[in-house]
């Protein structure tokens, strides 16, 4: 902490506060109310926010700093998950060995893939990573079924060896006995706030990941990575070979992805091959760009944004819509519901697609740019280093 600048420290503290109080912040609406549909403060989604936040932060270390756009990052997430589940199957349901192994395996895997892919740059690099990820997916889905359990996904069975399982060990994922799923519900008036142990484990790792990311951003290493993005020729004529730097960034972000994968399996001990499909990699890219490439907080926001839509908007069905507009006369109610039903429930993809377009058209620096703009309006234009990277913000849409 002592190495951080003042503004970084305050960012970290804000993130820590947000993470700690997430069960309150994400549950603003009382339970009975119609708006309770928009509450996101339940364990699974909060865990996902944190996990995908880690993933996006890690991706941003590669893409945001070096400009190398990997289209295959989901592969490392998948590999991390598989290794974690294997640890559950072989040792015990304690998440510590699982998370350690998932980070290591993802690191080794990304070293291997990065070593090959980083021989090329630009779109050639992107397509190479994409192809490696697609191969991993195809193989995991079919040929490698003994290792991955294919279509169904790898899970823990009763007859697995679990060599470290004592007679009294918990049969669900835990941290030295503390179960990930244990939740304490605080009923406060009409609100019910859920404090889930698993979520706080994820939040701890999120903060750790965030802190490391700040350190990397502010280190000479981070500076070199940003130099690679803006001008490789100059960097080479400064006596530096950019390859080791990009490879290190690639491996670090691969390890972040592995950590995310390990955590995902720790919260829910199942690893499916779809986790590695190219659309999953694309989702990571979208999260990062949507939030703000090269910013510290952006990727976390982007991850939250997409996961929120996936989990909240997809669950709004016509019955819910009718409920909301029940106060309107029948005809009008039906008309509104008819229009809205294209955008929620089975139409949530449409809303997401439209929002992608709107954000990238009007906020070239992603959500972080929106935030900076709003803040500048109120504060009269002070900037303390969390502005989106200049490349993303130089050209407005028109």
């Amino acid at each position: 902490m002592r190495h951080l600048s003042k503004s970084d420290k305050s960012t970290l503290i804000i993130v820590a506060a947000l993470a700690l109080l997430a069960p309150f912040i994400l549950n603003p609406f009382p339970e009975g109310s119609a708006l309770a549909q928009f509450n996101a403060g339940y364990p699974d989604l909060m865990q996902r926010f944190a996990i995908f936040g880690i993933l996006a932060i890690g991706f941003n270390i590669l893409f945001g700093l070096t400009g190398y756009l990997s289209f295959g990052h989901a592969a490392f997430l998948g590999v991390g998950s598989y290794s974690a589940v294997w640890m559950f199957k072989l040792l015990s349901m304690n998440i510590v060995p699982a998370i350690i192994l998932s980070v290591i395996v993802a690191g080794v895997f990304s070293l291997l893939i990065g070593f090959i892919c980083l021989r090329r740059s630009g779109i050639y690099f992107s397509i190479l990573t994409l192809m490696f990820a697609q191969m991993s997916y195809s193989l995991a889905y079919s040929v490698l079924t003994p290792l991955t359990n294919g279509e169904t996904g790898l899970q823990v069975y009763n007859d697995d060896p679990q060599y470290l399982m004592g007679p009294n060990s918990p049969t669900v994922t835990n941290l030295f006995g503390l179960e990930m799923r244990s939740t304490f519900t605080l009923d406060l008036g009409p609100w019910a706030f859920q404090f889930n142990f698993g979520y706080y484990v994820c939040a701890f790792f999120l903060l750790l990941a965030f802190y490391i990311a700040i350190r990397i951003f502010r280190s000479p290493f981070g500076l070199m990575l940003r130099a690679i993005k803006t001008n490789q020729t100059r960097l080479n004529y400064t006596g530096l070979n950019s390859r080791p730097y990009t490879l290190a960034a690639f491996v670090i972000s691969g390890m972040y992805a592995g950590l995310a994968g390990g955590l995902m399996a720790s919260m829910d001990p199942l690893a499916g091959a779809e986790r590695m499909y190219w659309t999953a990699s694309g989702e990571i890219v979208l999260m990062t760009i949507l939030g703000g490439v090269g910013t510290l907080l952006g990727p976390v926001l982007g991850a939250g944004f997409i996961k929120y839509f996936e989990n909240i908007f997809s669950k709004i069905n016509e019955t819910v819509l009718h409920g909301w507009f029940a106060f309107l006369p029948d005809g009008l109610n039906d008309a509104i519901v008819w229009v809205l039903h294209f955008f929620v429930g089975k139409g949530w993809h449409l809303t997401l697609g439209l929002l992608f377009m709107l954000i990238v058209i009007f906020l070239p620096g992603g959500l972080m740019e929106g935030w900076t703009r709003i803040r500048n309006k109120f504060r009269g234009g002070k900037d303390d280093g969390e502005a989106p990277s200049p490349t993303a913000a130089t050209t407005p849409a028109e």
Partner: protein
Amino acid sequence: MDAILLQILNGLDKGSAYALIALGLTLIFGTLGVVNFAHGALFMLGSFCAVALSKIFNISKITIDPDKVDFLGNPLKVKTPYVIEWFGESTGAAIIDWSVPLAILFAIPVMLLVGYVMERGLIKHFYKRPHADQILVTFGLAIVIQEIIKAAFGANPIPTPAPDVFRGSYDFGVLLGMEANAVIYPFWRLIYFAFSTVIIASVFAFLQFTTFGMVVRAGMADRETVGLLGINIDKRFTFMFGIAAAVAGLAGVMYTPINSPNYHMGMDFLVLSFVVVVVGGMGSLPGAVLAGFLLGVLESFASMNEVKGFFEALYLPSIDQIIIYLVAIIILLARPRGLMGRAGVMEE
């Protein structure tokens, strides 16, 4: 021998589809410098032009047949398509039967318009933006187009067969003096191959032999200089976007009888078409076509039982799943800019 011949046919056929899509992608990239993730969606839109036309032909007049009942016991509603009403049984049925070829005429103006609107309304504003932004916005657009089609036509594939005369297959084996059924190939796929070849040839001829095309090519090589000559290159590039959309659309129309179209077919092709473009070399039209055919043939050979068996003996089962990627990776490692790419294009 017969098996190899068959797979060459298959490969050329598949390859022609890849080449057509990659050609359009490269046209857009080469002229406008835009990475268009919505190109697969344009292909899909083309297919749905054919579906829509066949639905239009099937718009029916509903009469009640009191003698028959439907599954609920209500009087049966009999549907007679208006085209049959108007043009008589045989002509009407023929029009419906020929809806896919007729859709070509329908798709060209529609796709040109779609391309034009897309370029003027959206893509234009992204020329100077980073490629990542272009990817994001076109990906968003692709999702939106898909979802609109899904809302209108549903998620299930919609069978849109070729005209009756083109059903069945041609026996090449007999032609080459082999026994019957040794090498047979469906008529419609042969037509698809021929059609693609013609379209590819026309695009090249257009760029090579017309003044318009020459200006566009010059613009692709050096946009500023052409602009300095007082030529409005932007207008021509917009038109090329329309052409690329139309090429994708036509590829889609003709593809409908081969596989029933569905709303996400564009995404299925997207990854592969990018692989094709990159293997061909970013910005190279001949490269895209060459890579399309190469990967098509390769994929077909990899799916041969003999080849699969050979790799299985080497403990490499399911080689057909990954062969394209493997070969593409090797090509990219051996040739840094794909088969025919230029230096400095999208390498930053």
